[in-house]
């Protein structure tokens, strides 16, 4: 995401968008990026597979079309869509900077099509199974509980803190570094590197941004290469060692560049989107106190927490839109698409589709089909780290609500800033106040997952 100016939206309710013609609107508009729901509704109702001229992409907005597209990776190539999106407009220059100063240009090997994708994915699946993630819960809980305590101390006596920069981002960086075996790190650097990488698919960087971001990606890659070299010399019990020494099913080793790209993907994907989800968690707890009460009342109930996390991901999916490309002339949602059509799959809109989710703007933990949300994608590219992300969000929700109360925005909700990007919907800064609870909460009452929905 661009680290340059962020966006606020004055009215808080983009009523003026209702009156605009779809052809005059674009997802490149930072106001729409910040408050996209009215635009998504318009897309779904008027032109569900819509060509956004300014963006130069087809926006896929209906739930059913999104699932259809994602289940057909032959017709809609992830690799081609990603490559056309990456460093858009400046690709050759970006690549050259990385070759000269970042140890090389290493394409994202996981953003590929079968059979190449299958080879890599199989190698990675085991590391992220739900069972392995379950064994991490005690470590993750310790990391998160410590961070909540630190934040609560800092916020004591009414001091305003930043829920994103003081909590969400440090939290997810600490967890992924623990997983990767990176003991010493500069959290601010990793956060900057993450922004620099995700800006490459955000479509909002100008040339100056691109050069700055490319240099940060160089730093990141040089850091990764050093970490890998250390483990080549001396293997450790961590994920970087596993990748450096990994064998694929055919007995082959990962190429060096492939391994660099995977470690890079783990560092970035492992913190950026999950941090966004935890920022969203704080925003919802601050703006919908009844949700906070419901969470507190059910905090010891695992089943409630699981559903709570799914509803959070449905209600506020961190990833807004990822790219695909049609590999042949085809049709989607009755719209004819030429070969080479560049598509942006709007997960954010799919999760908001009223034909699939009743009253989608209601945060309702008891809805029956929450688990069918598309926040993690669908099909062969479904998020590999979904279990880890769910665990981090669940533990964050639990440890937060046990330790703090009265989470309140320190600015009007409409002044909250969002990152400028088409790829995610991320709060960039969240000034809040909160109170420390007198003592950690013990056992709570049983959940009632069928309790009345909480209306926003």
């Amino acid at each position, binding site marked *: 995401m661009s680290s340059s100016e962020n966006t606020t939206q004055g009215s808080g309710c983009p009523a003026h968008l209702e009156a605009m013609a779809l052809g005059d609107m674009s997802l490149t508009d930072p106001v729409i990026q910040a408050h996209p729901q009215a635009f998504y509704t318009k897309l779904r109702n008027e032109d569900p597979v819509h060509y956004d001229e300014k963006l130069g992409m087809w926006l896929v907005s209906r739930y059913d079309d999104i699932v259809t597209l994602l289940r057909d990776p032959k017709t809609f190539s992830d690799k081609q869509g990603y490559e056309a999106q990456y460093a858009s407009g400046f690709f050759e220059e970006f690549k050259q900077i990385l070759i000269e100063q970042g140890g090389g240009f290493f394409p994202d090997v996981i953003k590929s099509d079968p059979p190449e994708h299958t080879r890599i994915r199989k190698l990675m699946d085991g590391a992220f199974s739900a*069972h*392995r993630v379950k064994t991490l819960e005690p470590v993750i809980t310790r990391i998160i509980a410590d961070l909540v305590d630190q934040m609560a101390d800092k916020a004591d006596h009414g001091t305003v803190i930043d829920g994103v920069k003081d909590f969400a981002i440090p939290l997810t960086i600490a967890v992924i570094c623990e997983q990767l075996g990176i003991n010493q790190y500069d959290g601010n650097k990793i956060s900057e590197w993450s922004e620099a990488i995700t800006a490459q698919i955000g479509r909002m960087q100008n040339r100056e941004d691109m050069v700055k971001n490319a240099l940060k990606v160089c730093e990141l890659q040089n850091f990764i290469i050093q970490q890998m070299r250390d483990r080549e010399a001396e293997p450790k019990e961590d994920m970087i060692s596993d990748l450096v020494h990994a064998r694929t099913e055919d007995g082959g080793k990962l190429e060096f560049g492939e391994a660099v790209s995977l470690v890079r993907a783990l560092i970035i994907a492992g913190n950026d989107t999950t941090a966004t989800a935890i920022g969203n968690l704080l925003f919802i707890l601050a703006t919908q106190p009844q949700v906070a009460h419901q969470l507190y009342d059910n905090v010891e109930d695992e089943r409630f927490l699981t559903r709570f996390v799914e509803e959070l991901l449905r209600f506020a999916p961190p990833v807004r839109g990822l790219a695909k490309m049609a590999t042949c002339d085809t049709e989607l949602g009755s719209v004819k698409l030429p070969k080479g059509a560049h598509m942006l799959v709007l997960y954010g809109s799919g999760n908001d589709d009223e034909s699939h989710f009743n009253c989608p703007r209601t945060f309702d933990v008891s809805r029956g089909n929450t688990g069918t949300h598309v926040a993690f994608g669908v099909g062969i590219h479904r998020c590999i780290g979904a279990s880890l992300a769910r665990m981090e969000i669940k533990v964050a929700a639990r440890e937060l609500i046990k330790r703090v109360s009265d989470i309140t925005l320190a600015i009007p909700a409409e002044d909250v800033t969002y990152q400028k990007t088409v790829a995610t919907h991320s709060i960039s800064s969240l000034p809040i106040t909160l109170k420390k609870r007198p003592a950690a909460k013990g056992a709570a009452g049983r959940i009632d997952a069928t309790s009345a929905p909480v209306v926003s």
Partner: protein
Amino acid sequence: MSEITITFVEIGGTEKVITDAGVGENIMQVATANEVAGILGECGGGCACGTCHIYVDPDWESVVGGPNDVEDMTLDMVFETRKPNSRLCCQIELAENMDGLRVTVAPESL
């Protein structure tokens, strides 16, 4: 590796009989290798996605057994279609005593 027979009832009611399922394989692998409709196994058997949801035939429930805690939580993400005999078939490893097993593919939770 010895082979056993397993019958999948697909969502539309079509029966698919696999006669060469290997003992030691998990049912999701058998299903995807034989293109059983409705079994996707998107997370590769990691018990993380809920896209290999089946109902175990009542006659076989005691042989197959129930889900463990982790599987129970993942099944909860598809709770609209969950039944008492629901399992994620990536978590069921075929054993000799499962020869003749019959399972029904669960509909998508929509």
